[in-house]
């Protein structure tokens, strides 16, 4: 399956090899599988949306899903 991925702000660099944001994943995949495949620092992956809805790392992905992963908000001042 192919999912559309947007990595925001300081996470954008983990997507630099995929300018169109399309990531192919084999078989069944979760957000965790996706994050690991992109070498994202899993410990910092806290805020995920799939098709506009907040989800966790364990969310199963389907072909065509739109996945946003945001770095956590720190230093809100």
């Amino acid at each position, binding site marked *: 399956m192919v999912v559309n991925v947007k990595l925001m*702000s*300081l996470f954008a660099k983990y997507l630099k090899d995929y300018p169109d944001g399309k990531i192919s994943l084999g078989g069944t995949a979760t957000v965790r599988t996706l994050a690991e495949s992109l070498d994202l620092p899993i410990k910092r992956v806290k805020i995920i949306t799939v098709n*506009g809805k907040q989800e966790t790392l364990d969310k199963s992905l389907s072909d065509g899903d739109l996945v946003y992963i945001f770095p*956590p*908000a*720190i*230093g*809100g001042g």
Partner: protein
Amino acid sequence: MGNGYWQKTLRVNLTTGDIRVEAIDEKDLKAFIGGAGLGAEILRREIPEKIDPLSPENLVIFATGPFQGPSVPGGAKFSVVGISPQTGTYADTAAGADWGPAIKDAGYDIVILEGKSPKPVYLQIIDDDVQIKDAAAIWGKDTFESIDAIRRETGDDKLSVATIGPAGERLVAIACIAVDKHSFAGRCGLGAVMGSKNIKAVAVRGTKTVPVADPDKLKELIKKYQKQIHDTAVENELRAHGTPGLCETAEGLGDMPIKYWEQDTWPEGAKKLGAPNYTEQLNAKPLPCKFCPIGCHRQVSITSPEKYRYEGIGPEYETLGLMGTNLLIDDPKVVTIGNDIANRMGVDTISVGAMIGFAVGCFEKGWLTTDDTGGFELKWGDADTLLKMTELIGLREGIGELFAAGTLAAAKKIHPDAVEEVAHCKGLDFPSHDPRSCISLAPTYATGTRGACHFRGPCEDVEMGGFYLPEVGINEGDVKFFEQKNQSLVASKCQDLGVLCNSLVLCLFMIDGGDWTLTGLTEVFNAITGWDFSVEELMLTGERGFTVQRMNNLRDGYDASSEVMPKRILKIAKEGFRAGKEIPFEAMMKEYYALRGWEPNGAPCEETLKRLSL
């Protein structure tokens, strides 16, 4: 053996010139810790109800806590407490740089300014030598010039200086206090209270060392936590990119103000303003406060275009929000210049950005015209609008006069319908966080003792995955966007944390960014004081301080009826992450009141007061 306090207040009566040192009872320190907690209690004890904030009856209380003596990470802070001319409520505001440790090294925990000087003065404190000095030659200078002038006049370039700018002198209700050209006690207009007392600055240097209970253990703990916090801030890139790293996350989650809270999304604007673009465009580097292992503040350098050539401190996330996306300005260089003007004039960058956004909206509606502005148009996305308006508001000139008492006061003069357009709680303009996105902000803003503030209860960063407080039952996954469950609990615990940090006084970023735990900071607190507080007991002092702050407001008539969401913020988004979502405000407030133990009118129940030993 000491306890990290001198147990001394320096009280300066500016009317009479009387200077005296008073003892602080250890009982009060154990109950309120210091800073904003103890400051609120002093205010409760000493001022009558419903004073005019700009009258000599108001106090300006500079308050430290136990964390300013030793080199505690994030401990180079102090609180300033008084009644706000912007809101009429209790107010505290905090700043970093060197001033907090400097006053501690001079031998005092607290400085209280009372009365009103017959002429402009500044206060110079060098250990036991305390002088009220003539400020005729400094009055009128901007904040940076004032700091330079005081250091030049005294021949002492090591003085830490907390000063007001022209805005404070001219009683602009959003006037801030600038510290060492580096940090700003920004919100609530306490700079104007200094101005009303004819005091330009408090300049401090000290040579003493406050004794602590267990210096060896403290040294070991500080070393351990300095490293841990530093390593965390390197890993999460708060050190590399500062708070601008938040822009895209905040915008993506519907948390950032766009077009004065009217527009739902603007990803391209947030991307340009935020890191990493900010860091590259402005050649930004960390600019740490004393003892800080994070260094979130930014030193920036702009070499082109020529008109924006600049070297100095850069804007924070909050300013990028209110002076950037809020005005549809996407150039971090423009915001840097706006930030610099505000800093030099001595106005709060949050409120001045909010005012300008509000003013542009009024201009669009025809409620303000070029007759009001002195000939220039107010436009979205326009650098001149930001830069001219910031200067005029800071100088209280032209249209700045209309805004001198705050956005809400200006709205009342502009148009009968304008009041409903203001994004505020109790008169304090919203910061760059939207309660329609992080809904725990709704009760936080509504019940905020100084009005709408995200930093007297940083619950939005819990919602957005920034930090948790496991010791008090706040864990990852406890709250989800737009779901009411646990949100009021998070709001109340974060408010208690906010008061605790502003009482110690500790920069919240050590926790929200540095992952310092409540357990860790309690260990440090006990090594300094020699007391044996548990995490729960320390957090209880935060709740007690919050309640006393509230009691100040209740005394002055701010009860449950003042705890509302502004109409502008009840508008439901049509697109983006929070499209179609509504804040379950009434239900959240009901739950929040039950958790707090408050009567329906907003007063704490008898049992609550008893539990808090009040």
